[in-house]
């Protein structure tokens, strides 16, 4: 923990971190881009999850819905990751001790692991349930987990500002 805190303090003190933090427009602009990227990422993920649950587009094959939306999800993820890293860079020392940030950081790998497990297990047999309105229980479980984890990430992300203290 000590080493990580020092690393965060060093990042916080770098000229880039300071420049982003102290600028009038750069920080709000990055934050706005970050929020819009989350809408793109979570919006497309949620549509696929709702399809797995049989709540939307149930007459469309799962593989088509998922396959056609995946590039947009990745685009949202890329922008979210880069903008999020810049925001972290600027606030590293103060955000490191923020409980909401820590929760978000805990939920993010879980939200990433969930589709990975889904892809390499139940999704391998997608051809047998591709056109089923309601998918197998394990696919629906993955969808519920995904919706819950991303909701948690949005809530924790917004809560960061409520716990924020200036250094």
């Amino acid at each position, binding site marked *: 923990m000590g080493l990580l805190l020092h690393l965060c303090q060093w990042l916080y003190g770098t000229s880039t971190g300071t420049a982003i933090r102290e600028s009038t427009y750069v920080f709000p602009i990055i934050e706005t881009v970050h*929020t819009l990227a989350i809408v793109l990422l979570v919006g497309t993920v949620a*549509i696929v999850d709702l399809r797995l649950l049989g709540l939307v587009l149930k007459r469309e094959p799962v593989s088509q*819905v998922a396959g056609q939306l995946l590039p947009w999800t990745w685009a949202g993820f890329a922008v979210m990751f880069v903008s999020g890293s810049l925001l972290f860079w600027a606030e590293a020392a103060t955000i490191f001790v923020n409980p909401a940030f820590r929760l978000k950081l805990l939920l993010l790998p879980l939200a990433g692991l969930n589709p990975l497990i889904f892809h390499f297990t139940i999704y391998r047999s997608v051809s047998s349930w591709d056109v089923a309105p309601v998918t197998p229980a394990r696919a629906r479980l993955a969808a519920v987990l995904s919706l819950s984890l991303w909701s948690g990430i949005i809530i924790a992300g917004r809560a960061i500002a409520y716990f924020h203290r200036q250094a």
Partner: protein
Amino acid sequence: MSFLRLFHWLSHTWVGVAMRDSTWGFAIVEMCHLLALAILGGTVLILNLRLVGLGLRRQSVSRLAGELLPWFTGSLVMMVISGFLLLSSGPMRYYYNEAFRLKMLLTLPAIVFQFILLRLGGAQAEGPTPAWSRLSAVVSLGLWLSVGIAGRAIGFI
């Protein structure tokens, strides 16, 4: 009644007083607002991208419009209700906030325009999307993007 008087009145209603005095009220309602945004943003993106000719290209516009309409309407209702509650926590603060004014001015045409596109899209025949519908989808995406940016800016002013 002028907007100023309406906002002033709202700040004294029991909803306004409850939202202002509650410790967690604003935070909880704001998170609901954001969660509804994820769904609204997702449906708006998928529908308009389809009209442009991107994303779910192998599905017909009319089917997508029909399937996504309840989710669009549902999340929109949730956003309007939660947004109204957020506003009631400090109407006068928002009345003088330029980003808020801009957001309200943009939200109305964005909603009306999207409903028109959904109606027209629902009646659209199979085949390639006509140029006018691709253009209006780009306009719609631009409107929603501006609403989002103005919304985020409320907190910075």
